[in-house]
């Protein structure tokens, strides 16, 4: 009950936030929500089903490129383009999953497999003339009108879209955890042999996790495409993005519902805050911020390896799944 009340308050605050804050905090909030959303999506695979993916940028990129290309070529609005985007990303995910699981590629090896596929795709897109290759893909900028269906409009539109996506993903993963499938995932995460002996079809459940995760992630990519209006394979498929995606859920608390959200808030604010502080003290040398950021990560990982949320939840006296 307490957890629900807290969540309600947070959601209400986020709903009215744009009225109270300026454009810059709003942009930061959009970024936080975007990565919280991607974190939730990744968490389905790693946090729930225990499948480590270090190549989630692949699904972001596929979602972004598919939706953007369909919009640019056929004028298909973003919300409709999201469907084929999710289909393509899901198929890619299922393909990688099927190969990996059938051939029993586990743990770090599976993670490396996901990196390999993401990099492989990056290089392919670098050479794909139809989407501009490595010189990038650009969407036209439109003026004045706001259109939710096409995802065209001012930042506040994107803010509410990001908020909506994050809230929906949160509720969806909360609901999923209470289904037969959710239990199957948790069981597999804890012990795949025991899960199988308990009647869980491990392969299918894992494939389902990959499908849900890659589909959700690709929708984040659609958001990215229409928010930034331009994409380069080198940036959107990059390993750096894959790593960025997994930071928030791990720092927040793997396998918890609220972890990715908390992690995204903490990390983004840490980054922005450090920048401001360094500037304030005139220490803003290139690299200084990232060193401090790295040190902070190190401390968090050393002190709270299970993430911040389980610890905070105990402090607040709410269930760890929050």
């Amino acid at each position: 009950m307490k957890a629900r009340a807290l969540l309600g308050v947070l959601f209400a605050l986020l709903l009215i936030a744009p009225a109270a804050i300026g454009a810059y905090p709003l942009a930061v909030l959009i970024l936080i929500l975007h990565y919280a959303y991607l974190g939730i999506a990744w968490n389905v695979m790693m946090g729930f089903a225990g499948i480590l993916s270090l190549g989630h940028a692949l699904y972001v990129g596929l979602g972004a490129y598919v939706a953007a290309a369909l919009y640019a070529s056929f004028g298909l609005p973003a919300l409709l383009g999201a469907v084929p985007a999710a289909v393509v990303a899901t198929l890619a995910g299922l393909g990688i999953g099927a190969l990996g699981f059938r051939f029993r590629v586990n743990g770090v090896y599976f993670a490396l497999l996901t990196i390999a596929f993401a990099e492989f795709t990056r290089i392919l897109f670098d050479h794909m003339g139809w989407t501009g290759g490595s010189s990038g893909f650009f969407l036209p900028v439109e003026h004045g009108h706001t259109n939710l269906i096409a995802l065209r409009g001012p930042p506040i539109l994107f803010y509410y879209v990001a908020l909506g996506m994050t809230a929906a993903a949160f509720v969806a993963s909360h609901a999923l955890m209470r289904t037969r499938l959710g239990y199957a995932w948790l069981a597999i995460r804890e012990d795949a042999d025991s899960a199988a002996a308990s009647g869980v079809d491990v392969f299918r459940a894992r494939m389902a996790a990959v499908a849900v995760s890659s589909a959700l992630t690709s929708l984040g990519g659609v958001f990215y495409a229409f928010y930034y209006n331009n994409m380069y394979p080198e940036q959107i498929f990059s390993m750096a993005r894959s790593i960025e995606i997994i930071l928030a859920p791990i720092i927040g608390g793997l396998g918890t519902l609220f972890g990715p959200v908390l992690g995204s808030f903490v990390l983004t604010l840490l980054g922005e805050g450090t920048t401001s502080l360094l500037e304030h003290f005139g220490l803003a040398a290139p690299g200084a911020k990232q060193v401090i950021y790295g040190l902070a990560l190190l401390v968090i990982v050393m002190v709270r390896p299970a993430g911040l949320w389980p610890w905070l939840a105990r402090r607040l006296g709410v269930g760890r799944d929050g």
Partner: protein
Amino acid sequence: MADVLLAARGLSKSFRGLKAVNDVSFVVNKGEVLALIGPNGAGKTTCFNLLAGAMPPDHGAVILEGRDITGFRADQACRAGIGRTFQVVKPFAGLSVLDNVAVGALNAAKHVGEAKERARAVLDLLDLGHKVDEPASSLTLPDRKRLEVARALATGPKLLLLDEVMAGLRPTECDRLVEILAGLNRRDGLTILLIEHVMRAVMKLAQRIVVLHHGEKIAEGAPEAVVRDPAVLDCYLGEAEL
């Protein structure tokens, strides 16, 4: 002749040329408790793995209620009606005791709510009812053993495979578990196949015994007869001398 629940026919399995199970056949009748015994390395657990689908046999067949389930995966075997425990217990450490058992119960339940009900009932039966909300990782070894049995039982098996669930229990705990299992067998007609070293449990529970040695079946019969079988004594003595 009683109804046959499970028939193992000529099961064989080799690992890198070493025959872990060699042409083993036996049947488990409906409603009976059969014990599988033998010295360490006799191939008992491998035999279980073949029956429960953890690995496919090289040769032979597994027939459950007249249906060939040879080569089924573990989850398929489970759904077909074989519930098993692991010798080295494998609880879902990060989940609560209740959720551990609910995972198994989902196999037989229509929805999560029903599975939890069922899990609660099974946990009560195994004296774990007061620990439903604790994380499985916090349980003591005897409790983990019982949790393992509860999880397997919750899948609603026709045949329960128990792999050394008495090992590491104190005599009183052991007797209590024997009592519970005997009750399940008697009251609900649950068929049980168990691997066990604790002979006092075997003698109390088992109606028949199959003895494996070096992957081969060397004896089969009523408990009193089997423990006097010279071949059986020989294999255990041989082991003791080593």
